[in-house]
């Protein structure tokens, strides 16, 4: 997020696109709802009329995967009507002409067809978002989990730059991150192209810095590969040794049958986790790890805030902190790492090596955490980025994007689009929430959410067990007939092994980030009929 959660309650205008915030980020949503009660304007752009959409001034039900067409059409109108922030565009950005040229053909009429909404609605949104400043734009995986995910993100950024909503409180581009420490795992360099603090592995000076700090030679200079490439590598045996830490890939990756074939192909698989799960079944060695609240450390949230995690109880049996396990393996490779605790790792290594984190030390985050960038120990942390329109790279660069359809679109055989996400009471593959007393009673099974119109056409009753199938697989699942879902869509989550949406999802990826298209694939629903 460029901005912070504490700006939500005082923001004047929001556009929420591809985010089911009340279920996926419930507490963040409460602050947004507080603002709406006080009079803030809210536009929700989402195929589903979910709970937040019910509170919106305007719900814009675009079709799955039509985001770029919609955003480009908004920008088309903003330019045509001169409703954009000329001053910000001229003084803080470059390549506006390239963007303007690219969106010329995205007239509201052209986009309306792609998006499945009236052209007048697009003009209306453009009018509304240019009439109140600043506007806070929030998005979640509805933007990123597409084959065009990177272009979706660029389009969202283009819009906010054009409106001059960057570098100010209560504005910005705000992706709400799905997991407690996905921001932190990125910051720590658990990525194939960067060391901690987003320092490139291809930069020789940076490699030398880490070689000195770690007391090693010859750090690898080429970018590594991403998860989908690793998985392919297991089958081709290009990857012979695979180490999975705390990820239940067998349930979370698209196309479970394919994923399980890949995991089964691994020559040597180490899985380090807190529970036996669908992924540990394929392991050659399973290492038992300490869980949340069983060791000290830090998480970094969506707004870049580094907060403390503390020990409340001891790990069971022989389970050990994950950092300790990695350290023991390094020792077997002849390396003695000095840090003996999470605090030593953070204070003596992370916050020395990552420039954005140099000012964050454990003694400073005993209460509220600190938001990076925090370059020195006097620095109060940074609530919002790009202050006064000064971007990290200098001027903000408009990067126009062309709309492309999802990799798999409905056809005669598979006439419905499946979109997936999360539900309130559970988290991911339920390894955690499924073992908490009470939560399974709140939500005990997966459903296929379909519209009343489709239910009627297909002759399906609410609660009826149906078969949902795609080119990858088929599942039996209870139909949930709900007005939240538009005609033509099936919506499901991935919390339950049985009827997991990932038996159906398509392993098609954004070719830049390798993010899978969880939000769109083609399926059909059939009645099972009497046995």
């Amino acid at each position, binding site marked *: 997020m460029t901005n912070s*959660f*504490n700006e939500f309650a005082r923001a004047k205008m929001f556009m929420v696109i591809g985010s089911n915030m*009340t279920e996926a980020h*419930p*507490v963040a949503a409460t602050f947004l709802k*507080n603002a709406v*009660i006080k009079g803030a304007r809210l536009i929700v752009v989402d195929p589903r009329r979910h709970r937040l959409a019910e509170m919106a001034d305007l719900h814009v039900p675009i079709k799955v995967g039509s985001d770029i067409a919609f955003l480009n059409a908004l920008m088309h109108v903003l330019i045509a009507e001169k409703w954009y922030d000329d001053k910000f565009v001229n003084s803080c950005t470059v390549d506006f002409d390239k963007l303007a040229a690219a969106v010329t053909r995205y007239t509201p009429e052209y986009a309306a067809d792609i998006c499945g909404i009236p052209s007048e609605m697009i003009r209306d949104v453009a009018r509304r978002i240019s009439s109140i400043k600043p506007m806070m734009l929030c998005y979640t995986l509805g933007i990123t989990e597409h084959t065009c*995910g990177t272009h979706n993100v660029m389009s969202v950024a283009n819009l906010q730059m054009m409106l001059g909503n960057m570098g100010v409180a209560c504005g910005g581009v705000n992706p709400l991150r799905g*997991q*407690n420490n*996905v921001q*932190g*795992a990125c910051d720590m*360099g*658990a*990525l194939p192209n960067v060391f901690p603090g987003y320092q490139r592995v291809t930069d020789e000076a940076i490699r030398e810095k880490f070689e000195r700090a770690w007391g090693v030679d010859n750090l*690898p200079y*080429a970018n*590594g590969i991403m*998860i989908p490439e*690793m998985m392919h590598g297991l089958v081709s045996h*290009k990857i*012979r*040794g*695979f*180490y999975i*830490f*705390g*990820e239940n890939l067998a349930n979370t990756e698209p196309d479970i049958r394919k994923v399980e074939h890949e995991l089964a192909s691994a020559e*040597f698989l180490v899985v380090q*986790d807190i*529970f036996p799960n669908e992924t540990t079944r394929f392991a050659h060695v399973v290492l*038992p790890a300490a*869980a*949340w609240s069983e060791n000290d450390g830090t*998480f*970094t*949230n969506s707004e870049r805030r580094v*907060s403390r995690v503390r020990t409340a*109880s001891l790990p069971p*049996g022989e389970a050990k*902190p*994950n950092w300790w396990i990695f350290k023991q393996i390094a020792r*077997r490779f002849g390396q003695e790492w000095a840090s003996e605790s*999470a605090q030593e*790792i*953070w204070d003596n*290594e*992370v916050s020395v090596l990552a420039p954005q984190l140099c000012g964050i030390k454990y003694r400073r985050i005993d209460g*509220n*955490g600190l938001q990076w960038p925090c370059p020195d120990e006097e620095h109060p942390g940074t609530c919002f980025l790009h202050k006064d329109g000064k971007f990290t790279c200098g001027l903000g660069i408009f990067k126009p994007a062309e709309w492309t359809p999802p990799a798999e679109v409905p056809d005669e055989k598979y006439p419905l689009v499946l979109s997936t996400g999360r539900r*309130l*009471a559970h988290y991911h593959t339920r390894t*955690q*929430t499924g*073992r908490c*007393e*009470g939560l399974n009673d*709140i939500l005990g099974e997966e459903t296929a959410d379909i519209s009343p119109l489709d239910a009627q056409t297909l002759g399906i009753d609410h609660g009826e067990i149906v078969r949902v199938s795609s080119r990858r697989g088929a599942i039996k699942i209870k139909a949930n007939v709900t007005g939240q879902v538009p005609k033509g869509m099936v919506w499901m989550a991935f919390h339950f092994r049985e009827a997991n949406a990932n038996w159906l999802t398509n392993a098609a990826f954004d070719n830049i980030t390798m993010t899978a298209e*969880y939000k769109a694939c083609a399926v059909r629903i059939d009645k099972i009929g009497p046995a």
Partner: protein
Amino acid sequence: MSENKLVINGNEVGFTPGQTILEAAGAVNISIPTLCHLKGTSPTGTCRICLVEVAGSASLLTACNTPAADGMQVLTESPRVVEARRLVLELLLSSGNHNCAVHNAHAGDWTDYQMGVQQNDGTDALCPVWGDCRLQDLAFRYQVKSNRFVPRQGAYPTELVNPLIVRDFSRCILCGRCVQACNEVQVNRAIQFGNHGDQKKIVTPGDRPLKESDCVFCGECIQACPVGALVEKKARYEWRPWKATTVRTTCPYCGVGCQQLLHVQDGRIVKVTGVAGAEPNQGRLCVKGRFGYDFIYSEERLKTPLIREKDGFREASWDEALDLVAARFKQIIAESGPDAVAGVSCARSINEDSYNMQKLFRAAFKTNNIDHCART
């Protein structure tokens, strides 16, 4: 020109226009007791425990919703105020099953009274929030003897049908903090005041059980309840405030990073509350943050390293398991080069774990084949 000063208990106190007497007093640490007041929501003045005496006003005024005014003379603990508060407390105590020791109604029959309450409660224990009750605190502070009024029997049975929240209407003082928490803080709009007079009750639309309502089980109402009317089912009759220690930590679920207070008893988390005033959640939690803590105590936890053997796994020592991992990775790297190994880190675990994992891959294995589910 207005100086924006009022006098509280003889002390001159500054205020900012728009502040209530309660807020102006609070800013200089003059404590005025409250029950229904919930910070950050619109004051309702329902409970009348915050009554204060204001010179020139015939009646006592509620500090929570009376604006501070220039030159105002306020007494917060005058004999008249104390008398009024004691009456309020007597009435509240007699409004339901407040079976703590301060309730000395029917002095000689206290045991009988307890037995009756426990029978209604279906338990053999005192009120589940004994020792953590705002009403009990105030009754103690003002030494209320409530033998003037006959305690009212609960008009409604306790709602136990959902797995997380116990609604004990016999202990509800109708202060409305839960209604404020639900409507103004979390904005879930699941509960409201319903019925009238003697029958007044906090209800969902149609007075359905929470499980059949719009309730999302965030439990904000429990955190707001000043008495024992709303309690966590999982912590009920387990958590004791004087036995528990608290540990501040960060929630393990979504990317908001809510600050939690873990209430730990005998080495186990027994309940979770939000940290008041903390960034980013200001004390708020959702259903997962408040109730999703006990997975760590599951008997299914992995407790020892395991090594595959034929179709199953056998238990191994750390040394054996780690030696095997190191030996196999060394062999693969020697035969096929460092890029023949790859790793996936965890977006749920602490920063220090991800740091050490990428360090292991880069510094020891000499590959950048390290990733995690960053984009999903």
